[in-house]
């Protein structure tokens, strides 16, 4: 039970090589193909949002299960725990947006001639935007840090007070997160189309975050099992992760469709503009998004046997992760990139750079302690879990 992940020099070197290679290619593509600053900043925002979503989704996963006193996920909890350590880095990366404000958000340099943007000025102005950004990240970092600290205390002490403390912080995190995930998605994504609004947008982004981080946790389980760790994580645990991925993919589709149908039915010009730009210029991607995030997990994970094979579940999870990248792309790029929007070498390489940094931070955090929380009251239940 004292098994510890060994972040070997070999793994570090592989990550470093991939990172520097794709960074070089990304830089080269910026200088050679002259894609323009707005597309570069849209890429930064896209990847910030995707990887921030992975860590927030992981924190949400932990908080929900702890509040519900669920036992089965206890052997896995160090993986999402490690994913939340990316939040401080995400904070710094999000602050970088300050230099790209004028390339991304057209409300940032409004001259007062646009009546709609003038009306939203109380919320959409640069000082308040960054005040909110700091508040969001302070809350997220503090609550996840406290949860991690209590977990770390449970490694050495078997005092139940640490478990109770963790539950309290989970509850506080959930309340704070439920509000801030909505408002942050209005700030960072919805205000790209400053005229447009959708009341469902926050929940849509929240579920996208949760599904993509479930997919990442599954991939992490698969990777660690492949490297010879996590022997005690059996098909039963993978089964439950697959069930969550399956049902929350359906729930994501439900929200996607609810948002689409109401706007389609209502047919109000300020609402339909969002879908018109996406359907006119990116028709293929628009339907690929729906197919990859709904049809693939739905039919790929519908039978019991398919949910119990780690390799297959990881394969579906990888596709879903790509699907949610496309989902974020469709939210951000058509609005921010303008007529230069597209998927090219830059997009792929930037995402690989971010992914390498993210994986590096997660694996380094995993290597700092045992892979299970030894004195967790639910550990025994989780080890003997049958789904």
């Amino acid at each position: 039970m004292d098994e510890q992940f060994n972040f070997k020099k070999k793994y570090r070197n592989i990550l470093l090589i991939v990172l520097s290679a794709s960074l070089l290619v990304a830089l080269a593509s910026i200088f050679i193909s002259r894609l323009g600053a707005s597309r570069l900043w849209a890429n930064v925002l896209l990847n910030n949002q995707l990887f921030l979503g992975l860590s927030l989704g992981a924190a949400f996963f932990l908080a929900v299960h702890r509040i519900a006193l669920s036992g089965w996920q206890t052997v896995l909890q160090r993986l999402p725990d490690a994913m939340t350590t990316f939040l401080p880095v995400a904070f710094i990366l999000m602050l970088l947006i300050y230099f790209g404000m004028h390339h991304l958000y057209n409300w940032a340099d409004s001259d007062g001639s646009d009546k709609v943007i003038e009306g939203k000025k109380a919320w959409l102005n640069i000082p308040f935007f960054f005040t909110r950004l700091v508040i969001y990240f302070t809350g997220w970092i503090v609550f996840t840090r406290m949860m991690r600290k209590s977990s770390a205390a449970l490694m050495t002490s078997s005092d139940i007070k640490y478990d109770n403390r963790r539950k309290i912080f989970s509850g506080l995190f959930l309340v704070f997160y439920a509000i801030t995930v909505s408002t942050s998605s209005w700030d960072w994504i919805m205000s790209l189309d400053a005229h447009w609004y959708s009341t469902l947008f926050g929940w849509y982004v929240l579920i996208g975050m949760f599904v993509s981080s479930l997919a990442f946790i599954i991939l992490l389980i698969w990777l660690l099992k492949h490297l010879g760790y996590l022997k005690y994580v059996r098909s039963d645990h993978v089964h439950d992760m697959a069930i969550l991925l399956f049902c929350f993919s359906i729930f994501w589709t439900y929200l996607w469709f609810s948002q689409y149908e109401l706007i389609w039915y209502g047919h109000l010009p300020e609402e339909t503009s969002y879908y018109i730009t996406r359907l006119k210029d990116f028709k293929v991607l628009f339907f690929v998004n729906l197919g990859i995030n709904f049809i693939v997990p739905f039919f790929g994970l519908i039978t019991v046997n398919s949910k119990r094979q780690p390799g297959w579940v990881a394969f579906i999870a990888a596709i879903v992760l790509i699907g949610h990248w496309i989902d974020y792309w469709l939210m951000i790029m058509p609005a921010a990139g303008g007529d230069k929007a597209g998927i090219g070498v830059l997009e792929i390489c930037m995402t690989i750079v971010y992914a390498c940094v993210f994986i590096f931070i997660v694996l380094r955090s995993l290597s700092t302690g045992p892979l299970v929380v030894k004195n967790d009251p639910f550990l025994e239940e989780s080890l003997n879990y049958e789904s």
Partner: protein
Amino acid sequence: MRNRNYISIFFDDEVPLLQAVRKLRESNEIITDVLSPFPVHGLDEALSIKRSRIPVVGFIFGAIGAILAFGFQAWVFTVSYPLIIGGKPFFAAPAFIPITFEVTVLFAGLSMVAAMLIRSKLKPDIRFVPVDKRITDDRFVILVEAADAKTTLMRVKSVLSGIQTIEIR
């Protein structure tokens, strides 16, 4: 004594029940049924009962429901009775989705209930006479098939000698 073709073994806990099921199967006794007040983990494997095929029924009827509902709406609004609603085209697929979804769920749910009732031969006037009233409360019971009640009783008793049973009869 009424001539019976089975023997019932009573337990008050699930652990000896599982042990007994394994032992009886090892000694080639035929278990007709096991009654328990709550689902016992591992009992299905111990009895080597195959997984229920009810989900397959649900999937097939759900698919039928989806096709029927979508097809019917498409037929009504394009062929049978075209109406302009809200300036939308006649074939307005997004508008059909909520009803398609509901009919899918309805078909899947009802078909699974019906399949379960048919497969377990439950119908309104069925009568069930319990071997012992306690099996409807807190007792675990194994029913073993017995062509000749007396010899089987002796055999079962010797097989289960080390296991904590309440009663064997």
